[in-house]
């Protein structure tokens, strides 16, 4: 027997979610009006697999012949993915009903994507990492094109698919070269042989290609071209899910490859640092001139990938902590911001321009307050979650003798304050336009927003608790 029940328990969140999504598919196919039942079942499934994750937290080690990691690192990221998926699902029902696309497949595909992310974060073998990435990407390609009557949604899906397939090619080629250099795809065996293989240029070419493939998924400059179009065209709840869950999954993969296995040489560290610097600067600068709020959030999401890349470039334990903490904090604030858009927007495209938000505080004071909170946190103002995330990341750059990178990061986030506060100023200090009607806010959507806002405040007030979870990962 090559596996035992301990293995099964150690990866129980993945096993449970895969079985559950198959069940959901059957429910969807056998009922006449399955969408509502699928919605609640999906939420239940995500909550259960979140609970299972807690039990696997202390099972450090590996399972299935060294194919998957178990324990702290995957458990932490699995919780991030489950939270991201659960908040997106919670926001989805009112949004999908508004768009009249409330189909059961949406929830199954969303669970498949979550499953792919979980597999990526627990990959101890490059093959598992690749399969997880593909499972996540293929589900997201379809979800991006879920509004089929909308040309923009179709465009988003096709663009994401074509460029994503291209990036996958880079990743796969990189894996092949790393395999050629070290004779294995297993990350810990690559680590064991690292002292021998580190002088082999083949390994570094392979590592660079893997970096390109994953940089596409985290939307680092110059692999970011797809982001604004895809986030703008996709259903808003999916944009939120993509910009948090799939980004966190790709960062988990980056940590696994570059922080755990192939320790970056100083040259590669410098390459990643340049990527981070360009991503922060360009993302924030282009976000300044956006008038569409979804595009603005897309560029802001590019910039945030840059901040988190600082932690990968620093390649020390503080950087790892920073990446993990930031992914959790970023999930709440970004889903919150996209969530506000999804709650307000309607079929005619209202509330997609930043100018539509003028005077929102008079009409919907609670929603405006929540949006302001998410904007403050994204801008990195203390004492919210975004501030501490940036603090840990920039501190890691300083301790890795890359002070210049921290300076670039701080300057870039100063620039970002302008366009985040622009939204707040529109909501609070501009007059309500004549003849504007108020929007019916769904209770489910509001619940999700309040949960996200509470988490943003809580993570900012007690960051030490999460930081303690990010120690002794492997």
């Amino acid at each position, binding site marked *: 027997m*090559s596996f035992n029940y301990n293995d099964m328990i150690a990866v129980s969140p993945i096993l449970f979610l895969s079985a559950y999504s198959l069940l959901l598919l059957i429910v969807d196919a056998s009922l006449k009006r399955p969408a509502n039942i699928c919605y609640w079942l999906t939420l239940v499934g995500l909550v259960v697999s979140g609970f299972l994750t807690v039990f696997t937290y202390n099972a450090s080690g590996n399972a299935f*012949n060294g*194919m998957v990691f178990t324990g702290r690192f995957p458990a932490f990221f699995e919780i991030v993915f489950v939270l991201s998926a659960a908040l997106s699902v919670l926001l989805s029902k009112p949004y999908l009903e508004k768009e009249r*696309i*409330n*189909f059961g497949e949406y929830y199954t*595909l969303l669970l*498949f994507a979550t499953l792919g992310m979980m*597999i990526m974060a627990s990959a101890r073998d490059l093959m598992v990492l690749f399969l997880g990435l593909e499972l996540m990407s*293929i589900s997201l390609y379809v979800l991006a094109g879920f509004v089929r009557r909308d040309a923009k949604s179709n465009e988003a899906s096709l663009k994401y698919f074509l460029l994503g397939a291209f990036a996958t090619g880079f990743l796969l080629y990189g894996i092949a070269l790393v395999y050629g250099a070290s004779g294995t795809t297993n990350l810990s065996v690559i680590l064991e042989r690292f002292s021998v293989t580190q002088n082999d240029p083949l390994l570094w070419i392979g590592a660079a290609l893997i970096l390109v493939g994953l940089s596409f998924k985290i939307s680092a400059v110059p692999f970011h071209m797809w982001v604004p179009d895809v986030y703008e065209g996709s259903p808003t709840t999916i944009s939120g899910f993509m910009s948090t869950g799939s980004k966190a999954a790709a960062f988990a993969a980056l940590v696994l490859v570059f922080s755990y296995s192939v320790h970056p040489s100083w040259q590669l560290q410098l390459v990643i640092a340049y990527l981070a610097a360009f991503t922060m600067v360009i993302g924030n600068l282009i976000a300044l001139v956006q008038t569409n709020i979804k595009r603005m959030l897309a560029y802001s999401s590019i910039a945030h990938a840059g901040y988190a890349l600082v932690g990968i470039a620093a390649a020390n334990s503080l950087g790892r902590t920073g990446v993990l903490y930031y992914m959790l904090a970023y999930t709440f604030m970004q889903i919150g911001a996209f969530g506000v858009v999804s709650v307000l927007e309607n079929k005619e495209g209202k509330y997609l321009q930043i100018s539509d938000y003028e005077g929102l505080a008079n009409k919907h004071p609670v929603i405006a307050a929540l949006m302001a909170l998410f904007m403050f946190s994204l801008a990195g103002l203390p004492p919210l979650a975004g501030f501490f995330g940036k603090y840990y990341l920039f501190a890691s750059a300083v301790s890795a003798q890359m002070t210049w990178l921290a300076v670039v990061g701080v300057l870039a986030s100063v620039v970002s304050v302008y366009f985040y506060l622009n939204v707040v100023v529109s909501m609070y200090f501009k007059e309500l336009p004549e003849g504007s009607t108020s929007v019916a806010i769904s209770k489910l959507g509001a619940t999700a927003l309040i949960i996200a806002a509470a988490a943003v405040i809580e993570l900012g007030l007690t960051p030490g608790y999460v930081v303690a979870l990010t120690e002794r990962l492997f």
Partner: protein
Amino acid sequence: MNLELVVFLILAAAAVVSAILVITRKNPVTSVLYLVFNFFIIAILYLFLRAQFIAIIQITVYAGAIMVLFLFVIMLLNLGDDKLLKWKLNSKRTIASLIGLVLLAEILYYVVNFVSASSLAPGSESMGTVGAIGKILYRNYLFPFEITSILLLAAMVGAIFLAKKRFTEGSDGD
């Protein structure tokens, strides 16, 4: 001369002839059919090397799936016009041919200098059998193997959803 060698020579000759026919036929459909023939012969050659698994995969994947894809593309493109298929020399093709020649020279150089009879000695008898691959697949690679099944299912669900005639709720077939 033993029987195996005779059969091998016949098959090898057939493989070379069919490969040449693939690139000399005018009608693309005829070319594709010669290519299928060529794939079948190569599958038999794999069997000579006792690589059953690759032989079966060669037939199911290449002769089966990929050839159907080729035929589809040819029918979609509707290549009736002979003028489009005429070979004309331009800069793109010159560069492509040069790169091809460099690659060929590289392979020949490698074969002449580094490949010896000992490096071509057969591996373990059971290495390429279906059983040996199955064992590795279900023991060492059980986890990725199972994920692959979910991956294919996800792709299938997505493809069917996107191909359905149902644009909004209640419009069609809901």
